[in-house]
């Protein structure tokens, strides 16, 4: 594990050093490309706070979306008519760009937390819904026949067969939507906010504070990576029987 992490760490460090040397030797102005040390100097409590706001919005939206999507997927699998009627609508909403919807969310929900959480929910919801529906149907006919011969009720079949069978599908969707959640929250902040990394990005770019802009971008990337790895860690713990073959 540590040995595997060494090459990317070494290359990353080399890249940062090269960047620093380039900026200093070529006298590149800070508003165009700040040096790594200049970027590091902008890391303060305020940045950490803005990070916290965006991260919290993303996490809350991600959790609400995941629970909601799983519940609706369950209904879709149980009641086929519901799936037939609502799935096309779900896909229509999914293909609408989140950037186009975000202003509407701010009008409806205000410039506070909820418009950002809603944007995160919208963007996380569909990957989880689609994959959960697929996963809940993935158990082989023969497994279902086995449960039938054992006299299992449909609830028992659902809990003891379909849900565990679906977990690999669910988790590959969660990994995708966990990083998308950060995108949703930041897009929401772009449109109208008084705090958060999206707000910081808009403000610092308007004032040409490029070093702050860089640290906000890096913080945003870090938020997405942190969520992705947290889900990946849970996945490896929970789904020990599958090597993540499902997509």
């Amino acid at each position, binding site marked *: 594990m540590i040995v595997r992490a060494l090459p990317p760490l070494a290359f990353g460090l080399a890249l940062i050093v090269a960047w620093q040397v380039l900026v200093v030797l070529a006298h590149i102005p800070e508003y165009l490309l700040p040096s790594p040390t200049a970027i590091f100097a902008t890391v303060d409590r305020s940045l950490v706070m803005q990070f916290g706001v965006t991260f919290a919005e993303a996490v809350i939206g991600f959790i609400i979306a995941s629970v909601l999507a799983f519940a609706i997927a369950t209904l879709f699998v149980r009641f086929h008519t519901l799936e037939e009627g609502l799935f096309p609508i779900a896909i229509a909403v999914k293909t609408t760009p989140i950037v186009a919807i975000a202003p509407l969310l701010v009008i409806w929900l205000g410039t506070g937390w909820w418009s950002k959480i809603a944007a995160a929910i919208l963007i996380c919801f569909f990957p989880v819904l689609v994959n959960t529906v697929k996963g809940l149907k993935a158990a082989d006919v*023969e*497994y279902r026949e086995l449960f039938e011969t*054992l*006299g299992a009720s449909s609830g028992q079949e659902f809990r003891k*067969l379909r849900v*565990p069978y679906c977990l690999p599908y669910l988790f590959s969707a969660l990994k995708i939507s966990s990083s998308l959640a950060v995108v949703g929250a930041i897009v929401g902040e772009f449109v109208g906010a008084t705090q958060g990394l999206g707000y910081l990005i808009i403000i610092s770019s308007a004032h040409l504070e490029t070093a702050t802009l860089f640290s906000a971008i890096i913080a945003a990337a870090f938020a997405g990576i942190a969520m992705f790895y947290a889900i990946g860690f849970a996945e490896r713990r929970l789904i*020990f*029987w*599958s090597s993540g073959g499902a997509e």
Partner: protein
Amino acid sequence: MNAIVRDASARAERLGGAPIASPMPILSIAELSVRFGSIAAIEALSLSIRRGEFVSLLGPSGCGKSTLLKAIAGLVQPSGGRIDRPYADLRSSFMFQKPLLLPWRTALGNVLLPVEIQRGGNAVDSSDQRNAERMLDLVQLGDFASAYPQQLSGGMQQRVALARALMSDPDILLLDEPFGALDELTREVLNEELIRIWQSRETRLSTVLMVTHSIPEAVAMSDRVVVLSNRPAGLVEDIAVGGARPRTLEEPGCAAVIRHIRELVRRRA
């Protein structure tokens, strides 16, 4: 009370290691037909299975013999005829060609599945636990209770599936080419195990109905070999095989029966 008496008599029948079939049928199939759309899988098939018998259903792949077994298990609805089970309290278990173990459960957890489902909730008590361990012992996997399916070989997985099928303490075991996906050697060993378990008094199991497409396997194991015709499945011949088990195919009786069945099948191919 009845069940206990019958149980005792079934045990008594098995003295000497070779179960003797009692005359009363525990399963009678009359003029059974099964259709899938316009395709007839089974046509007017009649067959009766007596208690204590080991019966093989023999036929080419895709002839409808699995469909017959599934109809008996209630997995497939007949489109005509009847399947009667005079003794409603007799339990049956179905075993599939694939092990169908749940990969997130240990061997023991898989064996416990039928009891969990029977009990409704997850309330499996320590006697169930002991019972499941006993079943694993019976299939000689006592040391692998906490192993996960993917850590077991194909033959071991099928042993776990057998233990799971025995967990509900069935009278009748319905086997759909149970070891068909295994290699020849493993298959032979497991066939012998199956005979041993059928003969042993550790379980209630008295009657076995097994689908196979191997003539030697059917002849070596069964009291009766029921030869089925190709789709739609119908009865070609019902052949009694004598002799105590374990049998070797070199025995003159067996060899003659095998030759006879080969001729039957060839004439129809």
